[in-house]
C-alpha cells in the first residue's frame, strides 16, 4: 500500500487542467557548467510555460549514484509525479526506475539513457565522441596531414559517460591512420591533471604531435595551457565538448579547434513538455525509440570558429559581449564576431 | 593567625572545589608572607596540588577568594598567574617531551636577538642553571622525553628560577631527585627566602619540610587540618595531623568566622 501514501503526502497533486503536479529534476554533477547554468533554468522556464501550476523539485547528485538514488527517493517522498532524471550512471539508475515504478511515478530519462524509463530525451553520448573524433581527423586531413601522433585525454575513469565518449572517439580515431601515442583517463575530469599529463607527454610526443583529443572543454583548457607553455607552435588542433564560454573563447582565439554544442534549450523544453504530459497521465508522442523507450533524440552540433554565430550565439546560449571580452576583442573581429 | 603590617603575598580563604561527585576541597584557608617558606603537607589525594593549581591558574576554584599582596584577583590562566609574579613547579612537571632541555627551560620566555632565537645564550645559561642544581645531564640538546625522572624534575625546577617571581610554588620538587640534588634544591629554597620571596613547598618528606619550612599547613581529605610553626612542633605531631590521628578540622557548621586580620 505505497501508492496510497503517495497522494496524501503529495498534497493536491491530482492531474488536471491547473496541473499542480510536482516534477523533479535530478541532475548529476556540478563540476561542469552546463547543468546548473543552463539545464536547470531552461527546464524551469519551459515547465512554467507548459504548466503554470506545476512545482519543480530540484537536486544535484555531485557525481554520486547513491546520492542520486536518495534524491530520487526524497523527490518521491515530496510527491513528485515525474522524475526527470539525468543519471549519474545510466546503467545503475535502473534501480531508480524500479523504485519509481513501484510507486507509480514516471521517469523521463534526460540526457543519459536509462533502461525502462517512460521517455527519453537526449543527445547520444557515443555520437559526441564520434563527432569529436571525426572533426579532429577532418581538420588534420584538411591541413594535409595523414599520419602523425595523437594524444587522447579522456574523461574521468570513474564516470560511466566518459566511457561512452571514449568509445565513440576510438571508433573513429583507431582507424584514421593516425597513431594514438598516449592515452589518459583524467581523474575527476580535472583540468590540472590533464595539464600535467600533457606536459609530461610532451617531452616524448612533441616532434610528431599533430592533434589532441580532449574529452571536454575543461580538459582541453589544461591541455592547451600545457601545449602553449611547452612551446608547441603552431598550435595543434584540440577537441572539446560542452561549448563552455571559455572553450568558445579559445576557439575564437584559435587555440582550440572545436567543441561539441549540445543545444540544451530544446532538450530542456522537450523534456519539460513531455514531463508534463507524463504527469497528466498521457503518453507523449514520439518519432523514435531507443531500446523500446519512446524518445526525442537531438543531434549534437560541432562548433568551430566558422559557425559560432550560427550555433551558440544564435541560440542565446552565449552572447557576443560575453565571448568578446576585451582580451578576445581582436580575435573576435578577425573571426567576424562583432 | 599571623597579622603583620605588609599584606600577605598570598592569602586564600574559603576555597572549595568539586570534581564530579567528589568534593576535593572544602573551605580551605592558606596564607603566605614574603620571606616565608610554608610547607603544605597532607596525605595522597588530600588536595594539595588542586589547591595550588587554583593559584597557578591551571583551574579555578568553585568558591573562595584569592588575594595577592592584599588585592583580590581572579586567576584564570597560567599566563595571568605568571604576570602576577607566581612561578610554579608542577608535580607532573609539564614539560614538552618533543623539545630539548634548552627549549623547555626557556619556553615562554625565550631569549631572542631581533626575532631570532638566541640559542647560544640560552644554551650557555642552561648549563649554568643546571650546574647550580648539580644536575647530571650529559647533553642539553636531547629531547626531554629521553631524560631520567630526576633529570626531568631538575629541568622543571630550573624553569622556575628564570623569571622574577614574588611567590614560588614547588609541588613535590624533590620527589625524584638524588641526594645531592635534593640538598641543592633545599639550599635554593633557603636562598629564595633570603631574597624575600614567598615559597610554598609541597612535600611528603618530613625531614625536608622540617629543614626548610617556617610553617606547616596540613590538609586532610580536602579540609584544613591544622597549622604548625616548625619551631614549635615536631614530626610526630605533623604526621598525626596528616593521618587524622589529631583532628583540627573546622567543620562546615561554622562557615567563615575565623578570618584573621580584617
Amino acid at each position, binding site marked *: 500500500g*505505497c501508492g496510497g*501514501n503517495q497522494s496524501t*503526502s503529495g498534497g493536491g497533486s491530482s492531474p488536471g487542467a491547473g496541473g499542480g503536479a510536482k516534477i523533479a529534476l535530478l541532475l548529476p554533477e*556540478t563540476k561542469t557548467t552546463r547543468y*546548473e547554468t543552463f539545464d*536547470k533554468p531552461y527546464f524551469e522556464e519551459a515547465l512554467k510555460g507548459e504548466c503554470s501550476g506545476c512545482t*519543480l*523539485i*530540484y*537536486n*544535484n547528485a*555531485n*557525481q*554520486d*549514484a*547513491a*546520492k542520486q*538514488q*536518495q*534524491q530520487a*527517493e*526524497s*523527490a518521491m*517522498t*515530496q*510527491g513528485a509525479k515525474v522524475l526527470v532524471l539525468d543519471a*549519474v*550512471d545510466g*546503467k*545503475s539508475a*535502473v*534501480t531508480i526506475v*524500479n*523504485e519509481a515504478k513501484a510507486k507509480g511515478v514516471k521517469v523521463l530519462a534526460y540526457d543519459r539513457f536509462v533502461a525502462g524509463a517512460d521517455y527519453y530525451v537526449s543527445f547520444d553520448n557515443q555520437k559526441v565522441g564520434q563527432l569529436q573524433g571525426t572533426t579532429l581527423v577532418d581538420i588534420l586531413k584538411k591541413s594535409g596531414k595523414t599520419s602523425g601522433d595523437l594524444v587522447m585525454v579522456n574523461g574521468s*575513469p*570513474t*564516470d*560511466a559517460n566518459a*566511457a561512452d565518449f571514449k568509445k565513440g572517439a576510438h571508433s573513429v580515431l583507431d582507424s584514421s591512420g593516425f597513431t594514438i601515442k598516449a592515452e589518459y583517463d583524467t581523474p575527476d575530469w580535472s583540468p590540472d591533471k590533464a595539464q600535467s599529463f600533457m606536459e609530461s607527454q610532451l617531452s616524448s610526443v612533441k616532434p610528431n604531435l599533430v592533434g589532441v583529443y580532449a574529452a571536454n572543454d575543461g580538459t582541453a583548457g589544461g591541455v592547451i595551457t600545457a601545449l602553449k607553455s611547452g612551446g608547441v607552435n603552431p598550435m595543434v588542433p584540440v577537441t572539446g565538448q560542452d561549448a563552455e564560454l571559455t572553450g568558445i573563447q579559445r576557439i575564437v582565439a584559435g587555440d582550440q579547434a572545436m567543441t561539441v554544442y549540445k543545444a540544451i534549450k530544446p532538450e530542456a523544453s522537450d523534456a519539460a513538455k513531455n514531463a508534463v504530459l507524463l504527469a497528466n497521465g498521457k503518453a507523449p508522442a514520439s518519432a523514435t525509440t531507443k531500446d523500446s523507450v519512446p524518445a526525442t533524440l537531438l543531434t549534437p552540433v560541432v562548433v568551430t570558429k566558422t559557425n559560432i554565430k550560427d550555433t551558440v550565439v544564435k541560440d542565446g546560449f552565449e552572447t557576443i559581449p560575453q565571448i568578446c571580452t576585451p582580451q578576445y576583442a581582436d580575435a573576435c573581429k578577425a573571426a567576424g564576431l562583432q | 593567625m599571623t597579622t603583620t603590617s605588609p599584606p600577605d603575598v598570598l592569602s586564600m580563604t574559603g576555597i572549595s572545589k*568539586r*570534581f*564530579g*561527585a*567528589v*568534593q*576535593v576541597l572544602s573551605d580551605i584557608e592558606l596564607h603566605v608572607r614574603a620571606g616565608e617558606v610554608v610547607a603544605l603537607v597532607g596525605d595522597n589525594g588530600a588536595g594539595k596540588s588542586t589547591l595550588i593549581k587554583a593559584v597557578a591558574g591551571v*583551574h579555578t576554584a568553585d568558591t573562595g577568594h584569592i588575594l595577592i599582596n592584599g588585592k583580590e584577583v581572579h586567576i584564570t590562566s597560567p599566563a595571568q598567574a605568571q604576570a602576577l609574579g607566581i612561578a610554579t613547579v608542577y608535580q607532573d612537571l609539564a614539560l614538552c617531551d618533543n623539545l630539548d632541555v634548552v627549549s623547555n627551560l626557556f619556553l615562554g620566555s625565550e631569549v631572542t636577538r631581533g626575532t631570532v632565537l638566541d640559542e647560544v645564550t640560552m644554551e650557555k645559561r642552561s648549563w649554568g642553571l643546571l650546574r647550580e642544581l648539580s644536575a647530571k645531564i650529559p647533553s642539553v640538546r636531547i629531547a626531554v622525553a629521553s631524560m631520567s625522572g630526576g633529570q626531568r624534575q631538575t629541568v622543571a625546577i630550573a624553569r622556575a628560577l628564570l623569571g622574577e617571581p614574588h611567590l614560588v610554588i614547588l609541588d613535590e620538587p624533590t620527589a625524584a631527585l638524588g641526594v645531592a640534588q635534593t640538598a641543592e634544591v633545599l639550599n635554593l629554597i633557603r636562598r629564595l627566602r633570603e631574597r624575600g620571596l614567598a615559597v610554598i613547598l609541597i612535600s611528603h618528606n618530613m625531614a625536608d619540610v622540617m629543614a626548610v619550612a617556617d610553617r606547616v599547613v596540613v590538609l586532610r*581529605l*580536602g579540609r584544613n587540618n591544622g597549622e604548625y610553626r616548625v619551631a614549635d612542633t615536631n614530626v610526630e605531631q605533623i604526621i598525626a595531623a596528616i593521618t587524622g590521628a589529631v*583532628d583540627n*578540622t573546622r*567543620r*562546615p*557548621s561554622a562557615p567563615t568566622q575565623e578570618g584573621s586580620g580584617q
Partner: protein
Amino acid sequence: MPGELPPAVLSADLQDERLIQEEGLKGWVKAQGVRLRAGDLGSMPVVIGLVLIWIIFSIKAPVFISPQNLVNLTIQLVPIGILSLGIVFVLLLGEIDLSVGSVSGLTAAVVAVTFVNKGWPMLVAALFAVLCGTVIGLVYGVVFNRFGVPSFVITLAGLLAFLGVQLLVLGNEGTVNLPFNSGLVQFANGTFLPSWGGYVVALVSAVVVLAAGLTNNRTRASAGLSTLPGSIIYGRAVLLALGLAIVAFVLNRDRGVPLMFVLFVLVVAVMDFVIRRTKWGRTIMAVGGNIEAARRSGINVRRVYLTVFVTCSTFAGLGGVLLASRLSAANQSTGAGDVNLNAIAAAVIGGTSLFGGRGSAYSALLGIFVIQSISNGLDLLNLNSAIRFIITGLVTLLAVIIDSTTRRRRARAGRA
C-alpha cells in the same frame, strides 16, 4: 563530630567521606544535573544537535518528518553507517583508515561480478566480498606491524590501489546491475519488519536492559558494592521500550521498520558491548590511550593493531555489499566521492576522538544520523548546489558546536 557517617553501613565503593552521597532516584537525577553542568554528558549534546537539525528541517520542509521520509532516512544511512562503525575501531586506536571508500567500492564490485556475472550463489558471493575486506585488513595490519608505516600512508596507498582493483574487477562494462528482485537488493530496499515486529523489538530490548540492570545490581550487592536504585533501572527500561515503540509506530505508518536498519542498530549495540565489556575492547582502549603503557602491561600490541585493521576493513567489505545492494548495482564510482570522508566524519561528529582512546560505537550511529539527516533534509529543499554546499557545511558545524562546547566545559572543569 557532626556530619560523620558510620562507614560500616556503606558499600565498599562509597566509603570515602569526600564523596557527595546522593540517595535514590532524586539523588540520581541531581547527580545527572551536576554532570550536565560539568559538561560530562556522553553523547547527549550530539543528540541535542541532531534534534535541532530535525526541528529546523521539519519547519522548512514538513515532509521531512513524514513516516515515508523517515523510513527512507533509516535505510539510506545504513551502508555508510557500517563503514563508519569500522572507522570507530581504527580511531579508537588513534589510527586512521582513508580507504574504507575504495575497499567498499571493491567489495561492491566483487559481489556484483561474482553474483551476477559468475552466477555464484548470493550468500557465497556476499561472504566472499566481505572476506576480501578482511584480507585487505590483514594486509594493512601486517604492513603496519612489519614496517611501522603510518596508517595514513598505508591506507592512502590502499585507497588508490583498491580503486584500481575495483576498476579491474568491473572490467569494461563499468556497471554491473544486481537483479532488482534478488535477495540482496530486496534486503536493502524492500524488507521491513511486520507491523508487530517493531513492538516486539522494543519489548525485547527493554527486557534485556532490565535483566542486565537487575543482574548487575544483584552481583554488585553480593560483592558489597553500591547499586543503582530500582526506580532508575525500571524507569530506564520503560523509557527505552516507550521510545522504541514510538519509533516503530511512526515507521509503521509507512512501510514499517526496515530490517536492515534494525540489524545495523543491533550490530552497533553489539560492538558497543564488545568495546566496553570484552577483553579485546579494553585492550583497544588501552592501546589507543597509551600504547607504551599497554605494551608494558604485556598486551600484544601488534595483535591489537592487526585485529582492528581487520575489523575495520571487514566492516568496509560489508558496507560495500550493502552499497551495491542499496543501489542494486556496482559501478566505478561506488565508494568514491565523499563516501570515505563521510564515514570518518560520522565517527568524529558522533564524538569519537581522532587521537585515540576516546569514543564509542554509538558515535557511528549518531554521526551518520546527523550527516544523513542534513543530506536528506537538503534534498527536500530544492537548493542549487552552491547554496547546498554552503548550508551543508554550516549545519554540520552547528551540529557539533553544542557537543564541543560542553566537552570544552568538561575540560575546563578539570576532566581531561
